[in-house]
């Protein structure tokens, strides 16, 4: 059963009481909260996701209101991971983005069966496009743009590489848009569903674009390596793909990896094999439409 099938009342009640076990492939996260903004955010973004009823959750998280005075004066929320509080509290209005950020943290800190890169991953013709870059490079904007132009969304933040199968594992979730890119995507894809904006976060204004339902339905299908791209947004720059050497591509992935130091040899081996099977580019762009056209013409690698 999908979350969308629950009545708003049942949804809020179960969320506040025992928590809702949401199947966000390849994980189940049991999320508990009595904060209405979180309930409405989850309902908006996760209606098409299944409820996991088998009793197992990979992560138990709670977005908890701070008690005492904080309940009334500038109310705050905590991200609670199985009883522990790994972060400073945030204003209550940021409860939904806090869930998304906290979930990223859960995956990046625990799932070392994967080599994990801070990267957006899209797929076309069974080939994965891995776009690795530090925050502020226009990665999420580009990801949202491509996903609204026919690419399948695997993730906007986390490339999960299965070393045994050398496959990119989808974890399709809402795409986090920041500041000016919220308007850019609104104009680029008027049909896209964008949730309410949270202002004054540590990343500025943040709003999430709902993951396309087609991508959510295909969440169980991994993709083969295709391209590794390092994007950089630059005002007025023409859209241009410039070949990057394989060695520099491996170094770039290492720099953006969440768990390279945990996996060391295994990560090195996996990343070199991934790059071997991918065409590698640096990419600069100024206008999203040109960027999307450029990626539309990308030929898959010959092997």
């Amino acid at each position, binding site marked *: 059963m999908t979350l969308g099938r629950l009545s708003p009342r049942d949804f809020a009640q179960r969320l506040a009481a025992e928590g809702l076990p949401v199947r966000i492939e390849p994980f189940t996260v049991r999320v508990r909260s009595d904060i209405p903004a979180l309930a409405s955010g989850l309902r908006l973004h996760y209606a098409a996701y299944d409820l996991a009823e088998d009793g*197992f959750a*990979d992560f138990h998280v709670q977005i908890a209101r701070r008690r005492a005075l904080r309940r009334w004066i500038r109310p705050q929320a905590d991200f609670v991971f*199985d009883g522990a509080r790994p972060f400073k509290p945030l204003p209550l209005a940021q409860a939904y983005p806090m869930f998304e950020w906290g979930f990223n943290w859960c995956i990046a800190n625990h799932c070392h069966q*994967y080599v994990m890169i801070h990267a957006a991953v899209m797929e076309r013709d069974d080939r994965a496009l891995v776009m690795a870059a530090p925050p502020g490079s226009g990665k999420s904007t580009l990801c949202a743009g491509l996903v609204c132009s026919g690419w399948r969304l695997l993730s906007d933040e986390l490339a999960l590489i299965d070393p045994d199968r050398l496959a990119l594992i989808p974890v399709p979730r809402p795409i986090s848009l920041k500041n000016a890119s919220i308007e850019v995507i609104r104009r680029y894809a008027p049909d896209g569903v964008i949730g309410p904006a949270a202002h004054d976060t540590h990343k500025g204004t943040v709003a999430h674009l709902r993951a396309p339902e087609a991508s959510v339905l295909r969440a169980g299908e991994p993709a083969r390596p295709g391209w590794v791209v390092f994007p950089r947004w630059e005002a007025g720059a023409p859209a241009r793909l410039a070949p990057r050497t394989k060695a520099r591509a491996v170094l770039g992935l290492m720099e953006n990896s969440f768990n390279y130091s945990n996996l*060391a040899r*295994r990560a090195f081996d996996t990343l070199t094999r991934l790059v071997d099977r991918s065409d590698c580019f640096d990419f600069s762009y100024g206008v999203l439409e040109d960027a999307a056209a450029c990626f539309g013409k990308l030929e898959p690698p010959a092997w």
Partner: protein
Amino acid sequence: MAGPALLVAALRDPGCTSHWSLREWDLAIRQARASRLLGRLCVLIEGGADIAAVPAAPLAHLRGASIVAEEQRFAVQQEVERIQAALQGLGLPVILLKGAAYACADLPPARGRLFSDIDILVDRAALPDVEAALMLAGWASAHHDAYDQRYYRTWMHEIPPLQHLARGTVVDVHHAITPSTCRWMADSERMRAEALSLPGRPAVRVLAPADMILHSATHLFLEGESDGILRDLVDLDVLLRHFGQEAGFWTRLPERAEQVGLGRALYYALRHASRLLGTPVPAEAAAQTRRWAGGALRERLMDALYSRALQPRHPTAEDATTPLARWLLYVRGHWMRMPAHLLAVHLARKALKRVQPQEEAGTEAERDSPR
């Protein structure tokens, strides 16, 4: 408590996991993760049960943790090579303790284990040379606070942790087994003198089997922070099962405890490892160590405290008295290590520091904003 902790049941008998439902796995994974024992659980099931019977979702967590543990085991050995290289000019024996010793001597507790700092033991007289040599090779003191520096250097059996500037690895340099003001005074000289060299690593040594057990027990029951004490007890369990098969080990162990003055630690180790984890301890050895129990009242009190504090550090394995038990053991740890007048001053300074939080680079990184 909601019955005996699932994790403890699995540590005693990995075979029992084959009957677990997904709901039970959900709980066990959380308890093991909170106790830093996921990797160990994986190794135990691989060795004593059918890993193929574990459902895919929990198996992913076991495998992930065991992969990290395996890489760490390798990384610790590499780091020991670097410490050896930094210290080889001094020509003195460097004794590896705890995790680094298990990894380099290829002992079973190293499998599936998470490693943190590398602990080494050297002659007290050589401390200045050792510290200087490590600093030349890139390790620098991570504690800049003058009080911390003085606290370590005056009262402790180790100098403040040294962190490598580039790699971030931490070395704890010890010059004794117990602090100089401690109520348990181990004969560190005697333990160092019988350390064993390792094949292929001429410059480093490890404590002899009985001493290794005694040191691990002393660490757990003297200063073990309650976060990690179940993990430390599991180390002891695995070591005892391993060395326990050597001829004469069980006669030697209480004798050695007597010689080096660590009888009480050994008594606690054998008692709690056998009670909680089912470690096989011959009746004779158990009876021999009983004399260090320190009276029936103390025995009952310590049993009550440790039977709570040694449970997985997870809400599902705690009862209403667990926080009190942990707090009492924390205070006891300090009490054991320092005379009363020093302890009063020390705890007051720590309390004051908590009220006036100081900017200390790196320590708050985890409490930062999420991505």
